[in-house]
């Protein structure tokens, strides 16, 4: 069956450290992989998109890697801050999808403590 698994439900790190979140998938062939941030009681907000032929993408303190051999994406937040505390969702678009619909993981709740 098809699965998208995010490494853990919760991750707690100290301010200033690098947070690394994992997204593993099974039985998909992603053409694109995206990361979203969701704050409590709000809708998810798009952060980054990476294509199947890209290894890495950066935006300010954020970095995404994509390894199609390992079937894994890693999401890094460097110099983390308490304001980075949120739930982070990965989502992928399967290559076989003609309508480009997204499939979401369940998310990892990140807490950055001072």
């Amino acid at each position, binding site marked *: 069956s098809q699965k998208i698994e995010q490494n853990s439900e919760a991750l707690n790190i100290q301010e200033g450290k690098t947070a690394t979140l994992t997204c593993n998938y099974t039985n998909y062939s992603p*053409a*694109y992989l*995206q990361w*979203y941030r969701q704050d409590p*009681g*709000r*809708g*998810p*907000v*798009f952060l980054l*998109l990476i*294509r199947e032929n890209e290894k890495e993408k950066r935006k300010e303190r954020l970095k995404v890697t994509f390894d199609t051999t390992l079937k894994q994406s890693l999401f890094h937040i460097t110099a983390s801050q308490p304001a980075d505390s949120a739930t982070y*969702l990965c*989502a992928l*678009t399967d290559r076989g*999808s*003609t*309508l*480009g*619909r*997204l499939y*979401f*993981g*369940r*998310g990892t709740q990140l807490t950055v403590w001072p």
Partner: protein
Amino acid sequence: DVKVTQSSRYLVKRTGEKVFLECVQDMDHENMFWYRQDPGLGLRLIYFSYDVKMKEKGDIPEGYSVSREKKERFSLILESASTNQTSMYLCASSFPRGRGANVLTFGAGSRLTVL
């Protein structure tokens, strides 16, 4: 600023009532989506629409219907609300970037409680 607006942030309804959740986007997006989000289950797609008057079932369409009469508006209808439809409902829209890369813009969500 791009916006997806959901008409109600909080609703409380009784079992058996007909419920309308409205969503409007101002970005001229072609694609619109309705998800529900429950603790431990993540985001689950109910219905989506890629054009006016077009709709496609998602993973959990049972008990729901949708309407898209205008490009900017996508409505979710619960014909007869039940307690297991208590949830956070999220509307989203997108304009495909390149070959099927849907980047979604979400609304703030509608938290529905069915008593």
